[in-house]
């Protein structure tokens, strides 16, 4: 799959050019340090650094970056991507010229810090939209991390199939899978995992013991070097019902129809519409809109969330280098909620499905084998 090279330096240059185009001389980038799968983090997006707590960085229109961190973080910004780091006793003590300046990520800061900065610097115009618009694609290194993370997710799924069995609590399975994925190289993981004979959604794991006859819903999202990725799977505990066996392939078919539409120049909405159309043709139109479905996938946070939610009203045009998951994750009245989803990479000519093995109904527990 072809893809032109892209580096952090290219990203920085594109943002600096966007700043110069509108006369912005410096940007104050702000991270709240939460590191969530579905939230932006401009400091990480531009420096690759994940701070323990809130962190600030400044990008000037010549493309120079200066980091500001608290004592526990300041010494650890990567020197290669940054031109200087200042350690502050309090981030509000930042030395920053607010003239011709803008901000990115300011809205995510806790009020105590945002208020102090506002008092010191005045109201800085938000530059978030332009910042992310010109930096939507992943760098080559980030794509490598996503590939590695996706493989870790698949191996994590294999581990889950080995250990998920009746009597074991959801949370214990989740802990073990997370530790295993860390052993393989993940640094964090957003792992949703819940079980039951019939669910309305995927949920965080609880202390419920898994039972024979359950469907185990799994969203495995390891984070490697700050890059999240994801696969979504459905596991039958013991032999699945005939109904589940018959209905699950509809989700896979709809997902593949959506993925087929994913290419440069198409919109994210096109991908979602193909999935909705496919499931509507199977008689599930009423279940293809809220409250049953809000989105059919999403970009990944850490850095940028591009291209956003896979939703019909998202008119974002897909570009080479974008990474997102397509997951129909559909409620069907006959089966309840079931999950399938793959992370894909938009290439110069189309797309690449990153997992080696795409979704199929899986079996664990008593039956202990894949279908």
């Amino acid at each position: 799959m072809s893809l032109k090279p892209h580096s952090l330096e290219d990203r920085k240059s594109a943002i600096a050019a966007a700043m110069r185009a509108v006369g912005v001389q410096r940007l104050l980038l702000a991270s709240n340090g939460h590191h969530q799968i579905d939230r932006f983090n401009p400091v990480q997006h531009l420096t690759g650094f994940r701070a323990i707590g809130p962190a600030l960085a400044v990008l000037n229109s010549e493309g120079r970056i200066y980091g500001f961190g608290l004592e526990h973080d300041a010494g650890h910004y990567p020197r290669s991507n940054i031109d200087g780091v200042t350690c502050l006793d309090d981030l509000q003590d930042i030395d920053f010229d607010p003239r011709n300046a803008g901000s990115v990520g300011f809205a995510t800061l806790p009020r105590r810090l945002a208020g102090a900065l506002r008092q010191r610097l005045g109201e800085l115009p938000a530059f978030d939209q332009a910042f992310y618009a010109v930096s939507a694609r992943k760098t080559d290194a980030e794509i490598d991390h996503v590939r590695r993370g996706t493989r870790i997710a698949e191996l994590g799924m294999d581990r889950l199939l080995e250990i998920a069995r009746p009597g074991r609590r959801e949370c214990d399975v989740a802990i073990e899978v997370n530790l295993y994925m860390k052993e393989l190289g993940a640094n964090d993981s957003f792992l949703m995992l819940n079980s039951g004979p019939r669910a309305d959604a995927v949920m965080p794991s609880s202390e419920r013991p898994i039972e024979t006859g359950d469907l185990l819903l799994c969203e495995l999202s390891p984070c490697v070097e700050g890059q999240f990725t994801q696969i979504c799977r459905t596991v039958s505990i013991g032999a699945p019902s005939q109904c589940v066996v018959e209905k699950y392939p509809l989700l896979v078919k709809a997902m593949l129809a959506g993925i087929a539409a994913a290419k440069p120049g198409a919109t994210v909405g096109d991908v979602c519409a193909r999935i909705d159309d496919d499931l509507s043709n199977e008689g599930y139109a009423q279940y293809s809109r809220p409250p049953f479905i809000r989105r059919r996938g999403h970009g990944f946070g850490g850095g940028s969330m591009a291209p956003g939610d896979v939703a019909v009203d998202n008119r974002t045009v897909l570009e080479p280098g974008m990474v997102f998951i397509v997951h129909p994750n559909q409620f069907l009245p006959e089966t309840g909620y079931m999950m399938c989803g793959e992370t894909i990479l938009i290439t110069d000519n189309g797309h690449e499905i990153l997992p080696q093995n795409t979704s199929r109904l899986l079996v664990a527990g008593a039956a202990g084998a894949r279908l």
Partner: protein
Amino acid sequence: MKAMNISLPTGPFDWAPEILPRAEFERRLEITRAAMRIAGLGLLIVHGDGFDHGALSWVSGFTPKLGAAYALIPLEGEPGLIVSGSPGMKPSALRLSWIADMTVQRDLADDIRKWIEGHGGLKTGLYEGQAMAQAAYVAVLRGAGETLSDMTSVVDDLRRRKSACEIALIVQAGRSVEAALAALEQSLPRGRRHAIIAAERAAYAAGAQDVRVLTADRAGGAPRPLDDFDPVIMGSVPVAVAARVRGYWASAETVLGDDKTIPAREAKAILHALATTIDLSLTAEQSARWSLSWQGIGLSLEEAPQRNAPLRAGDVVCARLSLKSGSSGHIAWTAILAIDPKGARLLQTA
């Protein structure tokens, strides 16, 4: 101690009434409501998110996993919770709290307005509002329909006096920390990643619901979270471990592989000696060599009493001794102390 946030906690977080009984929460509500009466409030809104939710957990037992959540505490009647996530996720959220009146957030201002209207319209206070993002604060303000009284310092103060139940959980968390440290020490020669995972595994096995392990990559370096820098560690390195059990944190900083060094022996002796005093002060001779600080610990890794604030009976603090010598880099030891009327009690030490 500061630890990197994780994107989603996966351990056992369901409310366990046999461990934290409803009566414990009723007691908390009672003293909170007394403070509300003094402040002339009819409702207290308590904020929490994945990063900072000690206040919310104190009133509700709830740990927000998928975004911000808000407890609504009326002066009389049952409290409510507004939580993030989709409506289909509500069953999992309900397991996390003793509060049954739960609303899945759609429009925060509207959700709060409706809840307040359903309770007759109430003058409202806010707890932990400074930790919120501005947009959420504006939504709460719109929903409450008036100026919000900031009750953070008042309720933080109420939280300082730990119950026997809370202290027992901090002690239990301390055992998980100790298990993690032992595994970390044993595994460090095999590399940082391997050791951190072994430590996490040991903490979970000892009953933790969440664990954070930080290690330095060299002697005197600052402890950092797991990343891809994975050298085999030689010699003694600073480490920091935190674990929580049913919401309650314990933490420890120490230098592994150092038991025979003079600073380590000194630090441990001083920390043990401090466990008999209520004022946590060093002698002049000790002050020349050591810096001492303390900070409350409980449902948050750092909570009231704030750093080096005067102590009082009921406080549980993490006391930290660090060497003043700049050339040694980062070297610190900690102990968790419960402050009693006549002195301090050592709950856990690294």
